[in-house]
């Protein structure tokens, strides 16, 4: 029913059917199926070790998987990893990091402006691009990674939310920002989230993953007590926050 009335007219950009990943006879997850359409936001939730990041790696075809992953032809994927392996001494500046992808100052400025880091190139150079990657705060790093991933105007963003390192206020703004990007450039987003309130507020669909797909559908319909306790085990209850929209 949901499929028909909400997404019937939108283009499908990703179709996943009976996806399974196993490492050395150990099943990370199986029976995962979902569709994603242009401009749609899908959240993946589940406990630690439930295979969320592995699912991303499978979608990016970085690891072998069984089942079907069909990206519609010509789909450009932007990927925002959870973290980078850099420390404060790592000699790569933010500017270097962007130059791995583009030499165009204009493109760098545009991408950074659209993630809320404002100013012209000279201003950005002085305040951001000359800094080392490892000295950025959690929130700054997230913005830089998002800006980096949208430089070549992808159709879809895979966003792996960090489990720590961003304060609540900062986190809220990152999602506002993703929401803005999604509406302004009709970007589809799959986000791995640890916060059900974020999922409720921003996602069109949610995939509950714990070794297999426990539920899939609009958050209001599928994030019920029965599904959540199956997902997280025990007596987990979710109290929905009303945001008035």
């Amino acid at each position: 029913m949901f499929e028909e009335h909400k997404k019937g007219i939108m283009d499908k950009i990703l179709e996943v059917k009976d996806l399974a990943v196993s490492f050395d006879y150990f099943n990370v997850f199986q029976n995962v199926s979902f569709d994603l359409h242009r401009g749609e936001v899908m959240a993946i939730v589940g406990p630690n070790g439930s295979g969320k990041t592995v699912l991303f790696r499978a979608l990016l075809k970085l690891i072998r998987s069984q089942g079907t992953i069909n990206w519609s032809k010509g789909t450009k994927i932007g990927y925002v990893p959870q973290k980078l392996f850099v420390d404060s001494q790592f000699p790569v500046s933010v500017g270097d990091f962007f130059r791995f992808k583009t030499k165009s100052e204009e493109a760098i400025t545009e991408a950074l402006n659209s993630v809320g880091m404002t100013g012209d190139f000279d201003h950005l150079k002085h305040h951001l691009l000359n800094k080392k990657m490892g000295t950025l705060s959690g929130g700054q790093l997230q913005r830089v990674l998002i800006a980096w991933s949208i430089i070549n105007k992808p159709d879809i963003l895979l966003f792996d939310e960090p489990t720590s390192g961003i304060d609540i206020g900062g986190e809220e703004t990152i999602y506002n920002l993703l929401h803005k990007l999604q509406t302004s450039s009709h970007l589809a987003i799959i986000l791995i989230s640890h916060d059900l309130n974020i999922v409720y507020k921003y996602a069109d669909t949610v995939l509950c993953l714990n070794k297999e797909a426990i539920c899939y559908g609009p958050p209001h319909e599928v994030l019920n007590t029965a599904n959540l306790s199956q997902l997280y085990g025990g007596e987990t209850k979710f109290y929905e926050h009303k945001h008035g929209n």
Partner: protein
Amino acid sequence: METSTLTLSVIVGGFIGLASGYLGSLMVLRKMALVGDALTHVALPGLAIGLLFGFNPFFGAFSALLLAIVLIWLIENRTKLSTETLVGIFFATSLSIGLLITPEPELLEALFGDISKTVLSEAIMASILSIVAIMAVHKIYNSLVLGTMSNDLASSVGIRTKKIDFIFLLIVALIVALGIKIVGSLLMGSLVIIPAAAAKNLARNLSSYAGLSALFGLASAIGGIYLSSLLNFSPGPIVVLSSAAIFFISLIFKKS
């Protein structure tokens, strides 16, 4: 050392030092300092076989390194075994074999190098190969650094990380085999690691890091060879001590 031999040594040493410093900057970023050091010991049995059978020891050393590197790459990609442990066992073994089979008169040279014995044909070959190595490092530099920051991120933008890693290891084999001529198989690890460690203390961004590392490699090699000729010491240890001196100076200027 005669003036002409000294000039030749300085030129070859300079090229190899430059290449070692540049490559070393990648090895330090990939936290390969210890593996790289152990790896250089593998060259010894190859070198010895070259000496025993009368062919250019460079090719012996390069072949032994190549074999070791292919094995490491396979182990890393095909199994879940700890590379560090394997590297430790494998390299101590090859060093021991090398020590046993290297002919006694050449042992000191194999262990600590002696660039003063370079002849013109070798000098030309070493210089050309150094330039080739520098160009190859330049070509993979950014991809490899991005892969070090996040392998998944690099793969997601179409970088074939496994292939780049393999090319990188091939260049390591080439430069280590070349560098053994100057500093020998025991000290070669330091010629790739120390200039990069010093550069990391001072660099503000990637190009200054790579540039300084290459420059420090060049300066250590040239300075060390000159100094050793003045003091009448073996060049290998003096080259390494020169790079160590640069490192300690860099500590003074290090920004916290």
